[in-house]
């Protein structure tokens, strides 16, 4: 559990930091929560695996967003 929460914090911190800088990023957070929970619920029946899957999936989404952020930052720095 401690392992999962430290990873959640490590992934979410850049997003929260970025969101505090750019207000519009806050709009992504409810969507990430909702999408990961609904998607995970379509892959499992019981609550425990649903929540575990939702946490993993939300980390994937945040990771993907950070990847796109880094890619766009690099592109804008190069051009």
């Amino acid at each position: 559990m401690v392992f999962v929460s430290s990873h959640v914090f490590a992934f979410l911190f850049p997003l929260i930091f970025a969101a505090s800088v750019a207000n519009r990023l806050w709009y992504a957070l409810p969507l990430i929560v909702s999408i990961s929970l609904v998607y995970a619920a379509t892959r499992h029946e019981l609550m425990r695996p649903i929540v575990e899957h939702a946490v993993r999936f939300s980390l994937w989404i945040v990771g993907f967003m950070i990847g796109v952020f880094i890619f766009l930052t690099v592109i804008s720095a190069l051009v």
Partner: protein
Amino acid sequence: MSTLVRSPDPEYPVEIDLRNRTLAAIWAWLWPGAGHIYQRRYAKGILFMVCILGTFFFGFGMGGWRVVYASFRRPDLRLPYVCQVAVGLPALPALLERQRALSDPPKPPLFGSPEAFQAGEVADSIFRPPFDSRHAYLEQGYDKAAEWHDRLKGRFDIGTLYTMIAGLLNVLAIYDAYAGPAFILPGKEHSPKDDKKE
């Protein structure tokens, strides 16, 4: 009529009775989560209801209650409504309001104040499209959609996005009510490192 689905995961064994799954899918479309509650899958039903309806109404409210309306003609071909209507009943009044707006003469809006409508302008109310049979879309002086965008700024688009995503999420929930969860088979979800070890 009822269909039984079993989880292939030995860690979380579960057997689900989908009851009449066609009826469950219809319920799931009409009201997110209702299909699961009909199947006595209460926890998932409540989860779908809270997440999908929460997303829908949060976006709807953020968009000033103007982002869900039906229009199937150019230039305001409202394609987001195709996604929004997947939420079911909460988006269906838009079809009724469209019919009322396009009837000749147009009928007053079902919801909200009819003052603007009675003054001869396009009604500015929930579910109502930004035009009616008296005023074509983009007619000079009656560009209601541009007025909404100007008033709500980016929230109109973000609200539209939220309501669209809610509709698309309900498509997943409808499938889940009809066919059960798309279970992950044991051993299917492992990292590429595991493959190398094998």
